């Protein structure tokens, strides 16, 4: 394992294709990248790993020319730049294949590969020369070993095939560095195999590849070198011989844990919400069983895309449950809408705060009373006095910072908007509260307030399910941690088993060698 210093460029090798030196980037005070240095040589496959928020996306945006770093140098072919423009990046042959595919369903493969740069014919008529387009794409597909043709409609391709189209697009601009961002996260295993073969093919042609993935065993197989990021810094690199699952995990975490917030005052009680082999629409083949007890905070960890939000939506009645059943206090329930869930005291604080949490165009007071308007109405008419009284109680309770309660929610800070979402549920009688990334994008002070509030709720008998990608938060706040991997619960950790390593092991689907009780 190498210490976090630049990879020594061997004298035998020519100048590396890409050299980053001390690249820094901060977003409104938060250091996303703090002094990153790394190199990528021609024909090298780099596995780039790091937890959510380690700085991978920032790095990608800098390489793509979308954002400019605050400092440092980006060297391409030995020429140093302060920042790249999108044109620089494309001109240097850096091509991206994103997790979300950017293909046009209504075009064929060749049309997608040449979108925006179609070969033209008929002079001033500027017709698309479809023949030339197909003729140019055919050899690319051959190089990739694709089993489809240039004139196949994209809508009839599988996900892996569509990814190949994206790679063909990269090759068609003579890419010299292909960056694959979580290319396998949505692929089934057999398809993943094909993609790994394509990566090997690119390498053989002398094209450098940066392969970003949470699936460490794929990196183990594909990468010549692993670069691990942590907190915006280079955590270390691993050469081919050193790459192992455990070493990658060690590099990705390995920061001291902050002190835990106080544990529960009383031991958890009986099971409040029980999911029995629940099948969600996203992962219908991976049934989830989970018990949520009163007076506990159950952390739900996992990598992005592991199916946590989908589970939350199913438990809240937003998405249908395809199989299995839900029990509340031992009685089976069927939830056909969020209204059903709310009526049973199951509340959700959604991940998408501005889209699904608050109604930005409504005043705070109307946001708070919205789910429970009937209780604030005499016959059919809403009593504004009753509404104001409820909102006032919640403002004091949650310390919502606002000049007046008739202020529109849109003019509040993120933390206070989140408090408004919480307030509307606390004003009712929660039995189960599901919080999906409750502190994402919220300042530290408010975070602590939200943690304390969750603990108070749990102590009052509420069952709290907290979905979080923040390792510190998961370990510091939860009483138990359930970890999801590809749609299923890969393990549940009790307090004495809490460690970042254990959570991460379960998150990447390794259930075997959990580090013992600490």
């Amino acid at each position, binding site marked *: 394992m190498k210490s976090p210093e630049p990879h020594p460029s061997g004298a035998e090798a020519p100048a590396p294709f890409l050299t980053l030196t001390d690249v820094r980037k901060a977003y409104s005070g938060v250091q996303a990248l703090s002094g990153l240095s790394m190199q990528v040589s021609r024909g090298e496959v780099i596995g780039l790993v790091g937890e959510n928020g380690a700085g991978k996306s920032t790095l990608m945006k800098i390489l793509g020319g979308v954002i400019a770093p605050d400092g440092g140098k980006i060297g391409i072919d030995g020429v140093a730049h302060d920042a790249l423009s999108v044109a620089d990046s494309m001109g240097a042959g850096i091509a991206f294949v994103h997790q979300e595919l950017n293909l046009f369903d209504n075009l064929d493969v060749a049309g997608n590969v040449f979108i925006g740069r179609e070969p033209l014919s008929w002079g001033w008529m500027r017709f698309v020369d479809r023949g030339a387009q197909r003729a140019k794409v055919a050899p690319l597909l051959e190089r990739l070993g694709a089993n489809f043709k240039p004139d196949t409609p994209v809508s009839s391709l599988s996900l892996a095939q569509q990814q190949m189209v994206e790679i063909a697009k990269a090759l068609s601009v003579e890419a010299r560095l292909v960056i694959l961002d979580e290319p396998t996260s949505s692929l089934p295993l057999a398809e993943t195999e094909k993609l790994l073969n394509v990566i090997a093919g690119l390498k053989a042609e002398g094209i450098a590849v940066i392969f970003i993935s949470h699936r460490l065993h794929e990196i183990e197989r594909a990468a010549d070198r692993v670069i691990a990021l942590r907190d915006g810094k280079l955590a270390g690199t691993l050469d081919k011989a050193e790459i192992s699952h455990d070493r990658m995990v060690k590099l990705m975490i390995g920061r001291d844990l902050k002190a835990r917030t106080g544990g529960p005052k009383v031991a958890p009680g009986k099971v409040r919400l029980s999911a029995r082999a629940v099948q969600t629409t996203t992962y219908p083949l991976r049934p989830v069983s989970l018990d949520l007890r009163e007076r506990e905070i159950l952390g739900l960890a996992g990598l992005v895309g592991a199916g946590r939000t989908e589970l939350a939506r199913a438990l809240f009645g*937003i998405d249908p449950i395809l199989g299995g059943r839900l029990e509340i206090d031992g009685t089976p329930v069927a939830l056909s809408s*969020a209204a059903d869930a709310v009526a049973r005291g199951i509340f959700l604080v959604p991940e998408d705060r501005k889209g699904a949490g608050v109604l930005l165009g*409504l005043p705070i007071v*109307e946001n708070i009373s919205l*789910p429970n308007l009937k209780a604030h109405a005499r016959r059919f*008419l809403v009593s504004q006095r009753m509404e104001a009284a409820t909102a006032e109680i919640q403002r004091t309770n949650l310390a919502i910072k606002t000049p007046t309660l008739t202020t529109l929610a849109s003019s509040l800070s993120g933390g206070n908007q989140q408090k408004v979402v919480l307030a*509307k549920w606390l004003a009712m009688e929660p039995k189960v509260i599901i919080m999906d990334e409750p502190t994402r994008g919220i300042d530290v002070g408010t975070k602590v307030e939200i943690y304390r509030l969750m603990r108070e709720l749990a102590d009052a008998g509420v069952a709290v399910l907290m979905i979080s990608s923040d390792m510190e938060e998961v370990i510091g706040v939860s009483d138990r941690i359930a970890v999801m991997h590809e749609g299923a619960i890969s393990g549940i950790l009790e307090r004495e088993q809490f460690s970042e390593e254990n959570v991460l092991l379960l998150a990447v689907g390794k259930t075997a060698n959990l580090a013992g009780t600490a």
Partner: protein
Amino acid sequence: MTKKDFGLLILILAVGVVVTILNPRFLLPINLSNTSNLVGMFGLSAIGQAFVIITGGIELSVGSMIGLVGLLFVDFVATRGVPWPLAVVLMLALAVVVGLVHGLLITKLKLQPFIVTLCGLLFYRGIARFYTQDATAGFGFGQDFPALDWLTTGKIHGVPITFIALLVVAFVMWFVLHRSVFGRHLYAVGKNEEAARFSGIRTDRIIIWAYVICQVLTAIAAIYFAMYTRSISPSSQGNFYELYAIAAAVLGGCSLFGGEGSLIGVVLGVVLLQELQNLVNLLGIPSSLNYAVMGGVILIGVILDQQLGRFQARRRAAELARRGAEAA
């Protein structure tokens, strides 16, 4: 009354003053009575339209339904001898069914409101024309329904019953829209359907209700229109009336994106539209320019309103920035 509504009222009064100066006949009781009769009828359908627009939808079949319902009503009462109260009940039932179907298609099959109601516009017009083979339906000579006549075309102290009906409906609907639980849910759905659903509101139900309310108010308007024109040509009765309703709702502050608008604003929007029609007649502007005047005025109104909104937003932002700078 919001600031916007107040602005609209001022505009109505200003136009009224100018028209009166140019042609004092504007204030003649007969003119005011005629105009308020039209305001009453168009107002009912505009209020219905507003409910739909507040959910972020649109109801384009209003004009065709005014034709179909009017035709069926007159045919039932005048030709088939159906007692008129029963005919009214049947027409309202038809409206409920149509609204329900539109609402279900939009919420359960997730079709776009524009498409569903555009198909409705074509479909109901076609049915109306087929029903009488394009023949006009009307009352025979000497046919007399005193109670019905009084309830539809009558006047109380010179004030048309239609206008009084509008005032009653507007009064009730003001409470529904601005004070009831349903009204709150309606605005919430229009502002952000996703967040409303995540707050436990049965958004589908709210949207379906909006279409039902729209069709019922439209059917009432349709009966008034039918009794006003007395002979119904199935191919032209109610043509374009959905656009008057939409125009009035937009003038009254509704946003086609949903979540905005006030009942008073919508009623004032109708008043302004009819005032403009009246202006064209009274000022001797060629009546062929009628639509052009209306279109032009609506456009100018919307532009002014939007520019004013942007100006205010900029001023607020500048104010906040100034306060921020002081605090720093």
